[in-house]
């Protein structure tokens, strides 16, 4: 098992672990809501946890994008190298 495989397995396990506590909950009955109504109440401090949650999510998403970009850059360099080696070899073999 490679490091890459283990990392993927760890990511899947982490996802399931995050879902597990949620799946264990029971639910009280409540009617469906069909419209949002606005209020003038200010509760800025009470949704600080939302900032933290979304901050973490975007950090992970952009981190994932950055890692993919880094890998793509490496692959692109490898591709250029392989293409020049191929051209050399094809030139030598006529």
């Amino acid at each position, binding site marked *: 098992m490679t490091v890459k495989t283990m990392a993927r397995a760890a990511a899947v396990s982490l996802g399931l672990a995050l879902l597990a506590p*949620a799946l264990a909950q029971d*639910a009280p009955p409540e009617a469906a809501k069909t419209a949002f109504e606005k209020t003038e109440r200010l509760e800025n401090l009470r949704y600080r*946890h939302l900032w933290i949650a979304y901050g973490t999510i975007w950090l992970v998403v952009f981190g994932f994008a950055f890692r993919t970009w880094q890998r793509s850059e490496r692959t692109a360099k490898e591709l250029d190298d392989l293409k020049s080696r191929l051209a050399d070899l094809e030139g030598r073999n006529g």
Partner: protein
Amino acid sequence: MKLFPVMAVVGAAAVAAAHYLTFIVAPMERTMGAAQRIFYFHVPSAWLCYLGFILGFVGSIVYLYNRKAKADAFALAAVEVGLCFGLIVLLTGPLWARAAWGVWWKWEPRLTSMALLFLIFAAYWVLRSFGGRGEGVRRFAAVLAVFGAPNILFVHVAVKKWRGDHPDMVVSNGLTSDMRLALYPSLLALLIVFFLLLHLRYRAHRDALTVQAIRRRLARLRGI
């Protein structure tokens, strides 16, 4: 690739602007309070999750029709991005549910069908990640995507059809104008992130295929 830094900066700025509109400009909802603000990212993420799976479906159909590796690479990239947004939906939904319902999760139709849809495409991703790169695995995964994508319809109609507790269709008629002012820029910001990720993942899979092909050709030439 010089496009990435520009797109990443544009995407990050758009997400930051969407956060400003969501947390500062959008009004406080009367009954749900701050938790309702999850809606401005939760709903666009769900739409983009659908979009990722639909593009995965289209890529898989094209691959099954013409067996072009690029179509398969596109399908895989689209499913990966769809899963990324699906994970955002499944993580932010419970945050809202805890505040609105008092529990993290309910086995109600919308939530259950969404979890099942996610698991179907997670199975596709696991198959592609651990099943090797053979033609059989690609075909099997493509068929899985083709049969998995129509479940989006079940997720979409779940609230109306089976009368669950999930808020229903508030986007069309249940939002005030300043709530819409937060929702649509959020959708645009997430759309930029969606296409940035799709482009990156597609390029990564396509280049990996080209590297493999050139290596095989080099090996053949050396064997002459």
